[in-house]
């Protein structure tokens, strides 16, 4: 017993140090693996509110740029409105408004805290569960895909962006229609890569990459990037397709959160897929 007490007295500094390390690293690795609560993140109410104030001040730096972006988007949407079109032929036109049912809803939000140079980058949005945001929803801007909501608090939410290690958004390369997964290599916030495209297919430079919309997180056809070059992966018959993102994540402010109204239905249906046995 005396030996034990002597041991603790001798190594008390080191034991205290190890204790602090276990606390902090325990938090780190459990959060990386699975989000548990809002504490220790910027979606925590106090830090969220403070970061919101900071954004109230710093948003003026990009005000002009963001205004013109929103204006351009408005023009583009206005062009598609029914009242803009003139009937060319004199025949009757039947509008089947019961044929269509709304699948996606969008919640507008503002990025109040962001990083782009870390290994895993998270954005904080100023909207939370009170506005209808839930974890697992997709987030995009008018120029490109942003990420997936990782966790939410009452008035803030944390987005795991595509600038993280395991983002895995399913994308399609147009016009060839090949599908793959989006990855990020960790050092350049302007470039990502698409994995999963067979190396016996040639791809044209500057072909556009869009979201595929297969998992129901993102709607189909949100731009992601442009193909820049093809790099062969050693030992595998697939390309590492380097793409240049269409969105500049360093100056991103206005985003939309996707709410898929049919997500439950799709999930329920896909649960019925039998799991293949490992042979």
């Amino acid at each position, binding site marked *: 017993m005396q030996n034990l007490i002597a041991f603790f007295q001798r190594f008390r500094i080191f034991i205290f140090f190890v204790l602090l*390390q276990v606390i902090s690293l325990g*938090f780190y690795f459990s959060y990386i693996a699975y989000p548990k609560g809002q504490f220790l*993140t910027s979606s925590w109410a106090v830090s969220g509110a403070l970061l919101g104030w900071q954004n109230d001040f710093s948003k003026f730096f990009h005000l002009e740029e963001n205004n013109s972006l929103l204006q351009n988007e408005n023009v583009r949407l206005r062009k598609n409105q029914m009242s803009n079109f003139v009937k060319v032929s004199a025949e009757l036109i039947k509008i089947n408004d019961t044929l269509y049912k709304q699948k996606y809803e969008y919640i507008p939000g503002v990025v109040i805290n962001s990083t782009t140079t870390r290994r895993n980058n998270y954005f904080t949005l100023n909207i939370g569960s009170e506005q209808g945001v839930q974890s697992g929803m997709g987030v995009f801007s008018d120029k490109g895909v942003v990420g997936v909501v990782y966790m939410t608090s009452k008035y803030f939410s944390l987005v795991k962006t595509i600038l993280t290690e395991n983002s895995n958004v399913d994308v399609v390369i147009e016009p060839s229609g090949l599908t793959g997964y989006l990855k990020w290599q960790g050092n350049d916030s302007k470039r990502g890569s698409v994995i999963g495209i067979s190396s016996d297919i040639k791809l044209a430079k500057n072909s556009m990459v869009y979201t595929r919309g297969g998992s129901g997180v993102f709607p189909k056809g949100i731009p992601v990037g442009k193909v820049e070059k093809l790099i062969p992966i050693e030992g595998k018959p697939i390309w590492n397709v380097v793409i240049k993102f269409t969105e500049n994540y360093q100056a991103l402010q206005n985003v939309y959160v996707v709410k898929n109204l049919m997500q439950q239905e799709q999930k329920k249906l896909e649960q019925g897929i039998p799991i293949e046995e490992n042979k």
Partner: protein
Amino acid sequence: MEIILIPLIRFFGLLLLQVFILNAIEPGLGIYLMAYPLFIAIMPFNYNIFTCLSLSFLLGFSVDLFSNTFGLHASAATVTAMLRPMIYKYFGPRDGYDVIKNPNVLDMGFRWHLLTFGSLLVIHNFWFFLLESFRLDEILIVLKKSVLSSVCSFIICWALQYVFFKKEKTICNNCIYHYCWFVV
């Protein structure tokens, strides 16, 4: 009163600077500007190691609350505080430090500050980026990031000390008299 107030001001000043200004600046090349390790370095020589560790942990934890790193800053800060006495002992004078002096660049000179605070910053950044990537095949990127970030952060901290600190008076007879009078 001063003994409590001055560390408190430094703590919150560096926290706010780190969280609201330096976290928002991203110069590229993976550089991450960190000013808060300065707090760990400039704690007085006669602080207990437990106080050092606890204060560093608290500061790192507070930075974590604002920057979506979930505990990485707290971990790196405690490592820095743990290694601080060893590094100060290694680079220190043979007969120990003067208790009236403070471990900042104005009191101790640029060479000493570069050696001690520079190595603390490199260790801090290396630990931070290593745990952040947590892959051995990215070790070169980690090294590049930690060296570049350390250089940039060192320049910022050096400038901060020149702006906000004033030099401790040199010890003449008169001053010793004043000092003793104050203590008694």
